[in-house]
């Protein structure tokens, strides 16, 4: 059976920057073959020079990405993608500006052939507070944000730094309990946006993006863990953690096994590694977990949650931290 394709929902009210993000994904630079699904091509900027095929509601681009307009029938579009001979690495769905992302995720998340990666909800730092008071959309804007796995606070370059702090606090006050990523131009690292499939590395990028404040920590277990220990550890991570990925060895009652660990925006998945290479490494690889967080994650803060391991800041800028920006 082919592994499920990770699916990411991009939500947020009109003008929050969803299309900007989509446009940058389509422009490539991340090295992944993405299927980007949009309601309509309206403001999507497809570079004509990149188009290698155009068939009805689908554009195929030279960088391996496709862009489909799903109109009224997201389900049918997803079915088509799942059945394709050469399915994409990941699917990104741009939700309508009035969709309740949490409701939509309930539908797309378990669509056959897919697994929900995360729901990202963008907010326009300049206007989100005003929208949240608008009699027509106040409740919608608030519930969109509260339903996000990751809130992307966009366009922070257009507001004062003190306003950003105030916005972060305001987000907490309306029920946002997951990580909040302040950014500009809709930039979100690809590693956060989707799960990079095993065996595929995104291309390296030399661009050093100071606007995306992420840090990453490498956890190396010093011996096999018990399953309960792993689960407890993942459940007690600080809220700014957006991704955990890697593989560890478990030893419960003398039965050893290697498992793949995936944590994407508050959802945890622990699966048996079918073989070691599929788990993202060779048989000889030492178990390792990479933890990615918004802001500067202090390794010491993880020590309590992750005993029996060595924890270290990942040196330099990780090559998988790619900006979606061109």
């Amino acid at each position, binding site marked *: 059976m082919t592994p499920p394709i990770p699916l990411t929902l991009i939500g947020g*009210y*009109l003008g929050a920057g969803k299309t900007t993000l989509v446009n940058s994904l389509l422009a490539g630079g991340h090295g992944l073959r993405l299927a980007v699904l949009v309601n*309509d*091509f*309206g403001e999507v900027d497809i570079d004509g020079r990149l188009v290698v095929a155009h068939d009805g509601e689908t554009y195929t681009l030279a960088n391996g990405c496709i862009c489909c*307009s799903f*109109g*009224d029938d997201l*389900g*049918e579009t997803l*079915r088509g993608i799942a059945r394709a001979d050469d399915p994409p690495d990941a699917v990104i769905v741009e939700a*309508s*500006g*009035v969709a*309740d992302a949490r*409701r*939509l995720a*309930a*539908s797309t*998340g*378990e*669509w*056959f052939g897919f697994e929900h990666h995360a729901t990202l909800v963008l907010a326009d730092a300049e206007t989100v507070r005003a929208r949240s008071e608008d*009699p*027509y*959309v106040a*409740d*919608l804007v608030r*519930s969109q944000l509260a339903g996000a796995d990751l809130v992307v606070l966009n366009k922070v370059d257009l507001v004062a730094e003190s306003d950003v702090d105030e916005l972060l606090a305001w987000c907490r006050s309306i029920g946002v309990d997951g990580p909040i990523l302040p950014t500009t131009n809709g930039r979100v690292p690809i590693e956060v946006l989707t799960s990079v499939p095993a065996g595929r590395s995104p291309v390296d990028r030399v661009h050093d993006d100071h606007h995306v404040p992420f840090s990453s920590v490498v956890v190396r277990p010093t011996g096999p863990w018990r399953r309960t220990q792993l689960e407890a550890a993942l459940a007690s991570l600080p809220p700014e953690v957006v991704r955990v990925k890697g593989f560890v060895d478990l030893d419960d009652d003398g039965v050893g096994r290697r498992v793949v660990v995936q944590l994407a925006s508050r959802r945890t998945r622990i699966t048996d590694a079918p073989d070691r290479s599929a788990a993202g490494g060779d048989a000889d690889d030492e178990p390792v977990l990479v933890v990615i967080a918004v802001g500067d994650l202090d390794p010491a803060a993880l020590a309590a949650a992750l005993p029996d391991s060595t924890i270290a800041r990942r040196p330099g800028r990780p090559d998988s931290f790619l900006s979606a920006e061109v």
Partner: protein
Amino acid sequence: MLTVYPARRIHTMNPSLPEATAVVVRDGTIVEVGTMDTIRPWLDAHPHEIDTAFADKILFPGFIDPHLHPSLAATLLPMHFITAMPWRLPDRDVPATRGHEAFLDELRRLDATEPAGEPVFTWGYHELWHGRMHRSMLDAISTDRPIIVWQRSFHEIFMNVAAMRHFELDMTRLEAHPQVDVAAGRFYENGMYVGAVAMSGHLNDHDRFRHGLALAKAAVHQGGHTTIGDLTGSQFDTDVEWAALDEVLGGDDTPFRVQMIPAGARTLRNEDDRNDPAGWLRRTAERRGSDKLYFRNNVKLFTDGGFYAQLMRVRPPGFIDGHQGEWMIAPEQFEELARGFWNAGAQIHVHCTGDMGVELAIDVLAKLQWERPRFDHRFTIEHLGLSNPEQIRRLRELGGQASVNVYYVHELGDAYWTHSVGHERASQMARVGTCVREGVTTALHSDFTMAPARPLTSAWVAVNRLGEHGEVLGPHERISVHEAMRTITCDAARVLGMEDRIGSIRAGKSADFTVLEADPYEIDPLELADIPIWGTVFEGTPHPLA
């Protein structure tokens, strides 16, 4: 050759000559209305025949439902109806089924009588009437035959194990879905789409869809319509669907015309259309239109979500349970679309179900009137689930119209009183009385299958406003029989912008009549919905129902 139809009474709905006893028709058009005496000069001058078929009958202008969905009906009508309300359908009379055991008995009966192995699709289940549904109950009826129970509002499906197997639903994966309860066989909200998609091949089958459309056609005739408006949501967008519509409804044997009203949000899909709404409307009409399925200058827009699904946007104090309705489109986008079509001179119909949806539509209409005033623009609020009297007054002052699904009162009035918004607002849903008092041009519609495709049933609700348990809901929103008959004839014609050709019986208009066996003005208004319909005359040709 002239044809003369003497009748017991003709309600012309022309206030200048409200009643007559004879009408003269030539080539599908009315040439004279009056008495056998007053029409004499026409008969002296031209060869004629006198058709006395209606001598003891009552004639009205052909009924008009300005908002009815043949394609939706086509999907649903091939299913077995097990409903709390009685439905008269072209191929069957569906009695009311109320109570849990009665519902299961119906399923057992179907299992016993339907061809072996055929999936049984039912529509109409509602927990308030039929009790809790559970897969175990369906499995107890059959483990071999797929049984599908589709909830009345389309937001929930129950299936037995055989159905999940038949439609290749992977139960292990479904376990993980937050809105699928595999043990109960229940697919709800977004989970419902998982179930619906699995069945879509069956439901959209070529022959099944045509059969369904043929049933829809018969249902429209049976209701006494001679004109309907198809205000599409997503329909007739594809060549496949248009071909089916044209094949089944486009022929000479169809005793009604269909005014096709496309969804304006389609223009958002491409920049050229968005920048040129008038051109888009023209091109759509040129690509698709025919005599029977015709386009005019109308466009449909949406504000808020479905009324049966409780997804209407409600202003404070909101719903009793605190849930929120949904916008179908961002308010700013709605405004932008409306502005484009307003400035293109189009007639705009806006689906609005909650008072916040209505408020948005009226606010935007006010802005557009300020920016670029138009007379006789016919901006129409469609459905009008919840509203307040002040909104209706504003609508009047801004020149708007209303096309109302008044059946909401009968089917949902009680339920929304107890479970949704409370008595005050629920009893005033579908505020037809205020509309008529304020002088807003008002039509009734069925939004079929949201309500039966029976204008006399809609009129009966508007006149009596009886809830499902028989009590009057919102007595001050009732209207008179005459006002109700206007809402399904002349005023419905105005809502479609077709009043020059249809909607009353006067010289020069199309010879479209609905022929009744009793006079609505003479009977007990409580029996309005039960008046037998003989049939119709469409463009001069009689089409009896029997």
